C-alpha cells in the first residue's frame, strides 16, 4: 500500500525561515526586549544577561535563546479531567478549541450582542464538551455577573465543572494564578499529579512590540514552575504595532516568542511552552484588526511553520470571523481559517465560536464551526489507498447497468471515506422548503437547544466540586466579593 500523504500548507522556504529567525536573534541580542517583572529580571541577570534596570530592558544572547529552545519540550501531553484521555500537542496533531475570553455573546433571538452571564458561560462549556471536533475547551466567555476582579478564576471554575475536556485559559491578574492552580490541583488530586498530567494551558500575551508585562511574565514563571504549559500569544498588528510587511511581522513575532520561551526555561528548565499567537493584519482604513483577513491567516500559517522548524508545539488564533452575525462572512472566514490552520498543522487552533475581532462568542456559531472543524480534520487525513488494487477489480466485466451503490466495497468504505455533517444543508430544494426554509443560523440555534436538552452535563464528583467551591469562595472573599451567582442547569 502506498503511504498516505498528509496534505500540508507551507508559505516559507527553509532559507526564508532561517533569515527570519536570524533577524529575530539579532533584535534580541542588540535591541533587547522589555520585561516588567522583577523576578524575571533577576533570572536574566543570574543567567548572565545584560539587564538595564532603569528601562527594564534585557538583551538576550543567541546562546541562551538556543539553549532555551533545546530544553523546551517538542511535545506536550495534555489530559482530560479524568486523567485517562491523552492529547498530544506537537508534531502535526491538530486540536481545535473555541476562541477565548469573549466579552459579549451574540443573542440569536435578537441578533444583537449582549453581556454574557454565568448561565451563558455554563451553556458554552456544556456545548463545547459535547461537540466532537473540539478536543479542548476554553474559558471562552467573561461572565459579566461577577466582578472583573475574579473573572479569570471564575471562568475556570465554571469550565472545570461543566466540561471534562482539557482547558485553554489564562490569568487576568497576578493573584489569579494561585486560585486557578489550586482548582486544577483539586481536580487532579495533587500538585505532582497535575504537573505529570497537565489539564490546562495558560495563555500569556506579550505587548507588541517586544514587551512582557508584569502579569504575563508572572504567568509564564508560575506556570513553568507548576508544570502548566504556557501558550505564547504574540499579537503584532501589521503597520501599527509591528512592521507592515508580513515577513517583518514574522521577525517580531519570532523575537517575542523566543524571549517568551527563554523566560519559561529560566523559570524552569524543560517547562512546557507553546509557540503561538494572535497577530493580525491591521486595517489601514478602519483602524481595526481583522482576524478573518487572509493576510492574518498567512502570518499565522507562516509562524507555525517557523515554530515547527524550531521544534516547538504550535498554536494560532484561526477559524474565527469578524462578522457581527452568523452570515456568509462568518462561515467563509472561519472556514478558510480552520482549513488553513489544519493544513499548516497548527497543534492548538483557537477561534471557533468567535466573531467581531475576538470579542464576541456565539453558541450558534460554535455549533456551525464544529462542522467546519470536522471538515478541516477530514481534509488533513488525506487520501488513502484503501485496497490493492485501488479499484480496477471493481470494473471487471462492467456493463452499462453497473452501479456502485450495492457493491460490498461501497458498504465497506463509505463511512471511512466520507463524513456526514449535522446541520450543513444538503437537502433537496423542496425538502428544505418543507422544513421551513431555515438558514444555518436557525438550524444551529435548534441544535444548541437540542444538545443542551438531550446531553447530560459531564459533572464533577461532588467532593471535588466542594473543594472547587471552597477555592472560588475564598478567592472571591479575598477580592471583597461576598456572593457568587447561583448556577442553574
Amino acid at each position: 500500500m502506498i503511504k498516505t500523504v498528509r496534505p500540508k500548507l507551507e508559505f516559507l522556504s527553509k532559507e526564508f525561515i532561517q533569515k527570519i529567525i536570524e533577524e529575530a536573534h539579532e533584535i534580541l541580542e542588540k535591541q533587547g526586549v522589555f520585561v516588567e517583572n522583577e523576578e524575571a529580571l533577576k533570572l536574566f541577570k543570574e543567567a548572565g544577561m545584560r539587564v538595564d534596570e532603569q528601562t527594564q530592558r534585557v538583551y538576550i544572547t543567541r546562546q541562551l535563546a538556543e539553549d532555551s529552545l533545546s530544553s523546551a519540550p517538542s511535545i506536550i501531553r495534555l489530559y482530560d479531567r479524568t486523567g485517562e484521555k491523552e492529547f498530544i500537542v506537537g508534531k502535526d496533531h491538530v486540536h481545535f478549541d473555541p476562541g477565548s475570553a469573549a466579552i459579549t455573546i451574540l443573542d440569536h433571538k435578537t441578533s444583537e450582542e449582549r453581556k454574557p452571564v454565568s448561565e451563558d458561560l455554563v451553556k458554552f462549556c456544556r456545548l463545547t464538551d459535547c461537540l466532537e471536533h473540539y478536543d479542548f475547551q476554553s474559558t471562552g466567555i467573561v461572565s459579566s455577573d461577577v466582578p472583573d476582579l475574579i473573572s479569570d478564576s471564575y471562568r475556570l471554575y465554571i469550565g472545570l465543572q461543566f466540561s471534562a475536556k482539557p482547558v485553554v485559559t489564562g490569568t487576568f491578574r497576578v493573584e489569579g494564578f494561585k486560585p486557578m492552580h489550586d482548582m486544577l490541583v483539586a481536580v487532579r488530586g495533587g500538585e505532582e499529579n497535575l504537573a505529570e498530567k497537565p489539564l490546562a494551558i495558560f495563555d500569556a500575551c506579550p505587548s507588541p512590540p517586544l514587551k512582557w508585562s508584569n502579569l504575563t511574565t508572572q504567568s509564564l514563571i508560575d506556570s513553568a514552575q507548576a508544570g502548566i504549559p504556557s501558550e505564547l500569544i504574540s499579537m503584532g498588528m501589521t503597520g501599527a504595532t509591528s512592521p507592515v510587511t508580513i515577513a517583518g511581522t514574522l521577525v517580531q513575532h519570532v523575537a517575542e516568542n523566543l524571549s517568551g520561551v527563554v523566560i519559561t526555561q529560566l523559570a524552569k528548565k524543560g517547562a512546557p511552552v507553546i509557540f503561538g499567537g494572535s497577530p493580525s493584519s491591521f486595517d489601514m482604513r478602519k483602524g481595526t484588526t481583522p482576524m478573518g483577513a487572509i493576510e492574518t491567516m498567512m502570518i499565522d500559517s507562516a509562524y507555525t511553520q517557523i515554530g515547527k522548524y524550531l521544534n516547538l508545539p504550535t498554536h494560532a488564533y484561526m477559524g474565527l470571523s469578524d462578522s457581527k452575525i452568523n452570515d456568509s462572512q462568518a462561515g467563509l472566514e472561519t472556514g478558510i481559517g480552520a482549513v488553513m490552520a489544519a493544513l499548516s498543522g497548527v497543534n492548538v487552533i483557537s477561534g471557533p465560536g468567535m466573531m467581531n475581532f475576538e470579542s464576541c462568542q456565539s453558541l450558534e456559531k460554535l455549533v456551525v464551526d464544529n462542522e467546519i472543524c470536522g471538515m478541516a480534520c477530514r481534509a488533513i487525513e488525506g487520501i488513502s489507498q484503501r485496497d490493492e488494487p485501488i479499484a480496477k477489480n471493481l470494473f471487471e466485466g462492467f456493463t452499462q447497468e453497473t452501479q456502485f451503490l450495492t457493491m460490498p466495497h461501497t458498504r465497506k468504505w463509505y463511512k471511512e471515506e466520507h463524513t456526514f455533517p449535522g446541520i450543513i444543508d444538503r437537502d433537496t430544494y423542496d425538502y428544505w422548503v418543507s422544513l421551513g426554509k431555515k438558514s444555518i443560523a436557525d438550524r444551529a440555534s435548534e441544535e444548541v437547544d437540542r444538545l443542551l436538552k438531550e446531553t447530560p452535563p459531564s459533572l464533577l464528583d461532588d467532593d471535588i466540586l466542594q473543594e472547587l467551591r471552597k477555592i472560588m469562595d475564598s478567592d472571591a472573599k479575598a477580592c471583597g466579593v461576598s456572593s457568587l451567582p447561583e448556577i442553574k442547569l
Partner: protein
Amino acid sequence: MNKEEILKRMRTAIVEGNKDETEALANEAIKQKLDLNDVIDKGYVPGIEKVGDLWEKGEYFLPELITSAECMKGAMKVLRPELEKAHVSARSKGKVIIGTVEGDIHDIGKNLVASMLSANGFQVIDLGADVKLEKFVEKAEAENADFICLSALLTTTMLGQKKVVEMLKEKNLAGRYKVLVGGAPVNQKWADDIGANGYGENAMVAVRITKKLTGE
C-alpha cells in the same frame, strides 16, 4: 520665495506628508518675519483639510492621515516658540486632555485621535496610557482645559470612563469640561448612559464631534 509660494508649498508638504519640508517652510516663514498665525491658517490648515477630504474620499488611509498629522505637529513645534516670543498665542480651538484610562495599556486609537485633534488646531495634552483616573481631572483643572477625552479598549476598563464622569460630578465640575469617550467596546449608548458629551467611532469622527462641541 514669496509668501504665496511658501503657503502653497506648505499645503503640498502637509498633503504629501513631507516632514522635513514642512519644518523647513516653518523656519522660512520665521526668517521672512511673516504673520505666523496667518501662515498657519492659510498654509498648513488648508493642507490638513485637504488630507481630511482625501480620507473621506477613500484615497487616503491611516498611514497618510497620521503622517500628515505628525507633519502638522512638527510645524507647530517650530512655530509655537516664535509665537510665544512675540507674545502671541497660537490660535487654538480648545485645550484637550487625552489618555487611555487606568488598567488599559492600549493606545493606538488614543494616539490617532490625539494626532488628528492636534492637527486640527486643538491644543492636546496627552497623558499616555494606563492613566490614573484622578489625573484626568487634576490635569484638566491645572491646565484649564476644555475637553477630557477618555479612551478604553477593554470592557473592564471602560468603567473608568464612567468613574471620571462621576468624579467630575462629585467635585461639582459637571459641565465644566466636555467629556468625550472612545475605544473598541464604547458606543453612543454607553456615552449617553454615563453622561459623556460625545463619542467618536474613529479619529475623524472624533475631530468632527469635538469641533461641533466648540460651536464651530
